[in-house]
C-alpha cells in the first residue's frame, strides 16, 4: 500500500449528507484495511482449462475389465460412426441460446468450444425473418447493459429456415445478451 493514504475529506469533499458521509467513510476504511488487490499475470487472466466430463472411479478389481470393455465399445462405435456418417462431424455446442421476436420469428444460437485463437464458433439457425432485398442483411450483436456492444456478423435469410455460421472473438461473459437487428438500424428483431 502507498505510504500516503488518501484523506477522506480530500476524496469526497465536505458537502455530503451526514448519513452518506458516514457510509462512504466506512468504505474508505475498509479499502485501507484490505490493501490493493494483486495484478493478474497473463496466465491467470483466463480460467483454467477444464474437462467437460467427470471421472467416476471404478473399483480396482473391475478396472481391467472395464477398460477392456470400454475399448471394445469405442472401436465398435467408431467403426459404425465412420461407416454411417463419414469421418467428419461437429462437436456438441457448449451452450444454445434461444431468441424470439415479433411475428413468431425465432432463432437458436449454438456456441461451440473456443478455438486456440480465442474465437467462439457459432451457428445461428433462424426462421420467421422476412427475406430482405438484395444487398441488405441482418446482423447479430452482443449486448451489454441494454446497448449494442459488439457485432458478431451479418447474414441474409431465405424463406423457411436458414443456418448461418458465425464467429465471436470476444469474452462472452462480458456481455449480457444477444440481439438480431436489420443492418443499419438498432431495432432488435430477435432478442434473448
Amino acid at each position: 500500500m502507498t505510504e500516503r493514504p488518501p484523506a477522506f475529506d480530500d476524496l469526497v469533499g465536505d458537502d455530503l449528507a451526514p448519513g452518506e458521509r458516514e457510509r462512504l467513510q466506512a468504505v474508505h476504511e475498509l479499502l485501507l484495511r484490505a490493501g490493493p488487490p494483486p495484478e493478474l499475470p497473463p496466465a491467470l487472466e483466463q480460467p483454467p482449462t477444464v474437462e467437460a466430463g467427470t471421472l467416476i472411479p471404478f473399483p480396482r478389481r473391475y478396472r481391467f475389465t472395464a477398460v477392456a470393455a470400454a475399448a471394445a465399445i469405442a472401436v465398435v462405435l467408431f467403426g459404425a460412426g465412420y461407416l454411417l456418417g463419414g469421418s467428419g462431424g461437429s462437436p456438441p455446442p457448449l451452450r444454445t441460446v434461444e431468441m424470439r421476436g415479433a411475428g413468431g420469428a425465432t432463432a437458436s444460437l449454438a456456441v461451440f468450444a473456443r478455438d486456440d485463437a480465442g474465437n467462439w464458433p457459432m451457428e445461428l439457425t433462424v426462421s420467421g425473418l422476412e427475406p430482405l432485398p438484395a444487398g441488405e442483411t441482418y446482423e447479430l450483436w452482443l449486448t451489454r447493459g441494454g446497448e449494442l456492444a459488439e457485432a458478431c456478423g451479418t447474414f441474409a435469410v431465405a424463406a423457411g429456415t436458414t443456418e448461418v455460421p458465425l464467429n465471436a472473438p470476444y469474452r462472452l461473459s462480458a456481455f449480457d445478451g444477444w440481439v438480431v437487428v436489420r443492418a443499419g438500424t438498432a431495432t432488435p428483431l430477435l432478442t434473448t
Partner: protein
Amino acid sequence: MDVALCTALPSDLRAASITFVSEPSPTDGELIARIAARDRFAFEELHRRYARAVLGFALRRIPDRGRAEDATQDSFAAVWRSASTYDPARGPGAPWLYTVARNVIVDALRRSPAATVADPPELASGEVEPPEQAEASWLAWRVHRALTVLPEHERPVIELAYWSGLSQSEIAEFLHIPLGTVKTRTRSALARLADELEGELR
C-alpha cells in the same frame, strides 16, 4: 448455408439504446449452480469476479508468487469439479468459494512443506490461520471482489487514489480528465462499493 462476415458497424449504432434486453447480473450462487451444469460462460464470469481475490488470498498464505498463482488456478479447477456440492440453502456463493480456495491453498502448503521454510512460524503447518488473520483475509476477499463491480471508468480512480499515492489533481492529470470528474467518480465508486459491501458495514 449462407456465409457470414464479421463487419464493424458505424460507431453511432454501437451506442444505440435497447433497454429491454438488459438483465440483472447473476449472483455468485447462480453462477456456481450454472457451473455445476457445466456452463463455461458462468465459469468465466466467476473467474472474472474472483481471480484477483483468490490470488490475493493465496499470496497471503503462500509467499512464493509462482506457487500462489498455481494455487489460484487449482482453486478454480476445484470450483469446476465441485460446483455440484454447493447448496444455495446454506448461504451465498462467496463463502463457499472462499472455503474451496482455502482448502486448495492449505493442500498446496501441505504438499510442499520444504517451500514453506521461510513462512512465519504460525503458518508453518499451513492449516491453522490465526483468527485476526482469517478475518483480514475474508475482509480483503470481500473488498477485492467488490471492486470488480465498479465500472471501467470508476475503478482506476479508486485504485490510483488508494494504492498509488496520487492526489486527486494528479489522478486528473494522469487520466486526462477534469478534477471535478475525478471527484464525481470517486464519490460514485465509494457509494457503489458501500452498496456492495453492505454486510461488512453493519
